[in-house]
């Protein structure tokens, strides 16, 4: 009898275990199926994890197969395991939207030595990665790159570390590969302008991902801007001679786009902040003719519209809110311009205010304008957009600049005086030449008159773009590294001028500076304690009231019951 019961128990146990196992298998299969379905809703405001419309249109327009080869080592540090899934997500969307025109391949280069060699040649390097194996930290060589191939052309994304810029990198790569030639950005260099090294090294590296960067040395005006250059960057110009001004002007008249980053002063590396050297760019009048005049002044703002800067005094290092580093929050940037519409913040250190001399377009940065936007008779067909402006409480330093930081132990004087100054302006339209009606400047030192003879001066440009920013410091390598918004801003500006609006919608999605507007210590304390104890206290009070009411009503019922029993 006992045996029979035991046997039945064992049989039931086996039956139960089998059913449980089956249920587990069915659920596992359900998960496997779900993992192959591309079904997701992106709730983020900027659709951060969704393929943008720009990419979808480019993918739909493909007329031949583009192959995206994911060159990832199978053996990767475990913390990168999720990166594979995220990359896979993005690429599946690419496949889906391209209607089969995008083909995705996954390879481990380590499987074939020839493949490894080939990839290195194509621009996918081997990288060193830390892996813990058998309780030991090992450094292994691996690959984390993506190669885009189209016909006999290719474009490499050397290392993919996160997916925030993956869509931009992929789409920019596809665009580059589809266009026959790589777009060229010129960087004015030579005797009166900096090289793309030292302070601008990072800028050059960042731009070279998407563009071919070419230094443009105008050799005192003997050679013109090469015609294949689409966009010219004029950074930190100093005493630009008239002949070079003419070359830049004529480049603009031919439809070229120019980004001017003009400083009001220069720091001597030896002396530091003690004695800034005022700078004359030599192009102030030309820029004023185009519609924007950089003033010879520095903008100082007040908290919270300024950024902290680190200083050393003897052996003491300290960080202090520095009025000469204005921080432009989203609301003080143009919401209508694709360059700034999605940026959270930009820091413009030691920046000069700009006078706006042409009609301002609707959609510029909001705020009180210091210079009444006037229709200029010199540029009737040009419209300005203020990309970034200071807070309404900014003041100016003029004459001798004093860059010394405020005493960290002293409260900064906060006044409500001051006004809002434009700090970065985009100009769009048909420009009138600065040299219209003037003689063509002679080439310095040319006595023969051969150089430049027969040049025809253009007096009006086709529809083109100019951006003027009141400093070049914001694009120095250390500032690009410190403030991600600055990198976004610079790239968006170059992209806007060179590629048009298409890529900008993708680019800005990485920007995520969302500062809390809690400047004072008192405000922070209220925020902290109210959140920690406010709701908890309400719940506790509610609980006490409810439970005591309940107890009282139970007591009343008990009393009534006792009374009725007594009767």
């Amino acid at each position, binding site marked *: 009898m006992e045996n029979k019961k035991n046997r039945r128990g064992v049989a039931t146990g086996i039956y139960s275990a089998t*059913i449980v196992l089956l249920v587990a298998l069915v659920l596992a299969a359900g998960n496997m199926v*779900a993992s192959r379905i591309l079904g*997701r809703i*992106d709730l983020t405001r900027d659709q951060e994890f969704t393929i943008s419309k720009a990419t979808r249109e480019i993918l739909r327009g493909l007329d031949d197969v583009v192959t995206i080869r994911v060159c990832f080592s199978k053996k990767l540090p475990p913390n990168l395991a999720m990166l594979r899934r995220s990359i896979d997500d993005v690429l599946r969307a690419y496949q889906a939207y391209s209607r089969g025109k995008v083909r995705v391949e996954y390879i481990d280069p380590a499987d074939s030595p020839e493949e490894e060699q080939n990839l290195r040649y194509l621009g996918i390097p081997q990288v060193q990665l830390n892996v813990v194996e058998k309780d030991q930290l090992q450094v292994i060589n691996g690959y984390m790159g993506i190669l885009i191939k189209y016909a006999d052309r290719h474009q490499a994304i050397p290392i993919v570390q996160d997916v925030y810029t993956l869509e931009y990198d992929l789409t920019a790569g596809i665009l580059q590969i589809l266009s026959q030639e790589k777009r060229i950005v010129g960087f004015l260099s030579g005797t009166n302008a900096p090289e793309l090294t030292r302070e601008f090294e990072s800028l050059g590296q960042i731009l070279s991902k998407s563009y071919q960067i070419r230094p443009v040395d105008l050799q005192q005006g003997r050679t013109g801007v090469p015609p294949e250059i689409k966009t010219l960057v004029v950074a930190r110009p100093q005493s630009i001679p008239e002949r070079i001004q003419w070359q830049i002007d004529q480049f603009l008249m031919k439809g070229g786009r120019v980004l001017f980053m003009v400083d009001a002063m220069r720091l001597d590396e030896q002396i530091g902040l003690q004695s800034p050297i005022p700078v004359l760019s030599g192009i102030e009048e030309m820029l004023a003719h185009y519609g924007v005049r950089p003033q010879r002044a520095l903008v100082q703002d007040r908290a919270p519209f300024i950024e902290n800067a680190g200083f050393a005094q003897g052996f003491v290092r300290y960080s202090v809110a520095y009025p000469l580093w204005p921080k432009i929050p989203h609301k003080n940037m143009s919401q209508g311009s694709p360059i700034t519409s999605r940026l959270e913040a930009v820091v413009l250190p030691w920046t000069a205010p700009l006078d706006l001399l042409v009609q301002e377009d609707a959609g510029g940065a909001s705020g009180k304008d210091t210079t009444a936007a006037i229709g200029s008779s010199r540029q009737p067909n040009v419209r300005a957009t203020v990309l970034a402006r200071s807070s309404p409480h900014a003041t100016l330093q003029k004459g001798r600049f004093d860059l010394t930081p405020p005493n960290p132990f002293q409260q900064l004087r906060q006044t409500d005086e001051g006004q809002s100054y434009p700090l970065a302006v985009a100009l769009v339209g048909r420009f009138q030449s600065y040299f219209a009606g003037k003689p063509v400047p002679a080439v310095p030192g040319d006595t023969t008159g051969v150089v430049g003879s027969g040049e025809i001066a253009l007096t009006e440009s086709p529809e083109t773009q100019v951006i003027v920013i009141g400093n070049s410091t914001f694009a120095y390598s250390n500032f690009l590294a410190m403030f991600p918004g600055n990198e976004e801003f610079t790239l968006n500006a170059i992209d806007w001028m060179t590629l048009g609006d298409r890529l900008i919608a993708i680019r800005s999605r990485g920007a995520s500076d969302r500062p*809390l507007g809690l400047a004072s210590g008192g405000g922070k304390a209220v925020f902290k304690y109210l959140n920690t104890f406010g709701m*908890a206290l309400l*719940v506790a009070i509610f609980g006490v009231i409810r439970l005591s009411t309940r107890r009282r009503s139970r007591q009343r019922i008990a009393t009534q019951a006792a009374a009725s029993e007594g009767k």
Partner: protein
Amino acid sequence: METVIPIFKKEFRSYFTSPIAYIFITVFLVILHGLLFWATGFLVIAQADLRDFFGLISIMLIFFVPAISMRLWAEEMKVGTMELLMTFPVRDWEAVAGKFLAALAMIAVTILLTLPFPISVALVGKPDAGPIVGGYLGALLLGAAYLAIGSWTSSTTSNQIVSFIISLLILLVGSLGLDWVRQFSPSQLAPWLAYLSLRTHFDNITRGVIDIRDIVYYLSIIGFFLYLNVRSVESRKWR
């Protein structure tokens, strides 16, 4: 089905007719915000980004959900009301569902009472609403998965403390443990461990992306452990 609702109502009401719910919610809110302000330095970073906030909720649920779930079945067995419950014309799954939903509603109320924090952040900053919606949905799904596991362990013992400890261990291993082991696991195993981890899917949802894979994963975990729960309750009959 019509028996699920009365069980749900009775169970849910029982939380609020004793001090349990009030103490639970008050302690949860104070510890959550305390950790947020004093341990993660939320106001030092001063960004309208709620990832740390939801990250803390997910960790706190590991400790708080077993405290709720431990009494679901263990108490019935200890007090002896289990037999009584089994004599009612209620199917096992209905009893399991009713109790589960009531405890889930209790957890949902707790989580929703943290809403003043994102609202206050929105008043002084500009947070992205997507990850906040995702964060709450993720917290609810994670809480439901934890609860399903806790409810099952509660049905396997008549001792509430034992139930609490077993649940806590399973949740610690299933979330933080798997994440930790993943750091040292062979590369081929890492994606599987990442998929199995209860928190990985939560992290995905709190980015603001509702992915069918993460939803299916949580529903599978909830379904599987509730099924085990039903089997466990059933087995009481022939034990």
